[in-house]
């Protein structure tokens, strides 16, 4: 028996049949876990700021520390377990960025150290760098031109 449903009708019907993401569970968890990761970052920032007078170095060290921890927790297979609950809370902090690189490096090692680990490390993180850097170059061009015209 052939169904006489349009794609629009089926989209609406199948949508009603599909459970929605549990917002009431996801949102508080994303807030708590994401907030906790950034608060840990703040602890390191305060620590490094008290040791080093240069603000930028302290901030960079904070990023490096969190990146390291994200990768360590990935290698120990703990980050995905946290992410199951954290959602955006583990995705958005810089630890999620480093998890995406470490997880790809670990996964694709079986395709070789060069063609696998080396080439595919950026399979998820790549676009973040490409579009981030490209956007910053566009901004740089505009900022420079405005400076020339204005100056």
């Amino acid at each position, binding site marked *: *028996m*052939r*169904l006489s*449903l349009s*794609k629009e009708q*089926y*989209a609406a*019907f*199948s949508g009603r*049949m*599909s*459970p*929605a*993401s*549990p917002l009431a569970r*996801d949102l508080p968890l994303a807030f708590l876990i994401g907030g906790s990761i950034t608060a840990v970052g703040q602890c390191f920032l305060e620590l490094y700021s008290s040791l080093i007078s240069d603000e930028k170095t302290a901030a960079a060290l904070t990023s490096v520390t969190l990146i390291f921890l994200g990768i360590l927790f*990935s*290698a120990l*297979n703990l*980050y*995905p377990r*946290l*992410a*199951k609950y*954290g*959602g955006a809370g*583990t*995705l958005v902090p810089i630890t*999620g960025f480093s*998890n*995406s690189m*470490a*997880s*790809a490096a*670990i*996964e*694709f090692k*079986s395709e070789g150290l060069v063609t696998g680990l080396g080439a595919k490390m950026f*399979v*998820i993180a790549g676009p973040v760098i490409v579009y981030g850097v490209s956007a910053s170059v566009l901004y740089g061009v505009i900022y420079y031109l405005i400076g020339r015209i204005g100056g």
Partner: protein
Amino acid sequence: MTGTKKHGSITYLPDSPVYITSRASLGGSEEKAGKLASLLDISSEDDYFGEDTWEKAETAIVRMLVDQLYKSAQTTPESTDLFLGGDLQKQCMATSLGLLPYGVPYLGLYGACSTFAEGLALASLAIDGGFASSAGVVATSHFCTAEREYRTPLVYGNQRQPTAQRTVTGGGAILLSKDAPKDRAAPHITAFAIGKMRDLGIKDASNMGAAMAPAAFETISTFLEDTRQTPEDFDLIVSGDLGNVGHRIVSRLAEAAGIDFGGRYDDCGRMVFDPSQDTHAGASGCGCSAMVLTASLLRRMEEGKIKRLLFAGTGALLSATSLLQGESIPGICHAVAIEI
């Protein structure tokens, strides 16, 4: 054109039944912890199965299944005229590498999660057509190879959608013959339908139950029309692996079409994992329906608990590339009627 063995629009009735003479089932760690635990012929806590990559592990699964199949049939691969099989890896490699050492005449299949039903239908065609007197069918999947192929690295942290299904690590294999075993009653294929693809526009790869459900409904209902039967003629109708969402959709579509399943309809994707395993909408993968049929359904037939079974394997026809290029996901469903 309608051949003499073809009835209605998609259904074939072999002249004589095709017998299932041997079966083998295998599951990994998560499957072993689920509903089929005590029914699997082979299971392992180690999803690497002693290998060093997930892909090699799936090749090992194919070989363990085939070994078990011939051991239980007390025959050798030389007696098999044709071996059909498939998996979810690119270019169907687990099956090809897995069957390589056996020296069997081999056709590799790709029907996504419908592969096992596709193999049973094709093997029945070959045997009833007189081109083979015996045939083997195998289908496997591996959670870890499928994650890499279709989704993200395993240790990447992401949240699964509630509609997502978990790919089964494991599979099933069957030996078919034109001759009935002499010493016992064996389940046999009495009819099969080769389904038509159906695409109602679903693009969400984490809701494949919704993508496949229209094809499942159309194949099951058309098969019943073609053979002038109703659900009451079967003890159980199972779809391939639609999971909870697809099962719900097919049930509603049937209700709306006036087809009364009367509690006889279930889905392989709902028969593998326990809800406590947090696998969201259920199980999927080529290995899912193959494992459920070989571990549970055929066993129940042999025990006399099911006399007539309609096994409707469903597949979501997508690739990682087709999804990225914005294509929607056509569904397919092949039905196989098995009696004892």
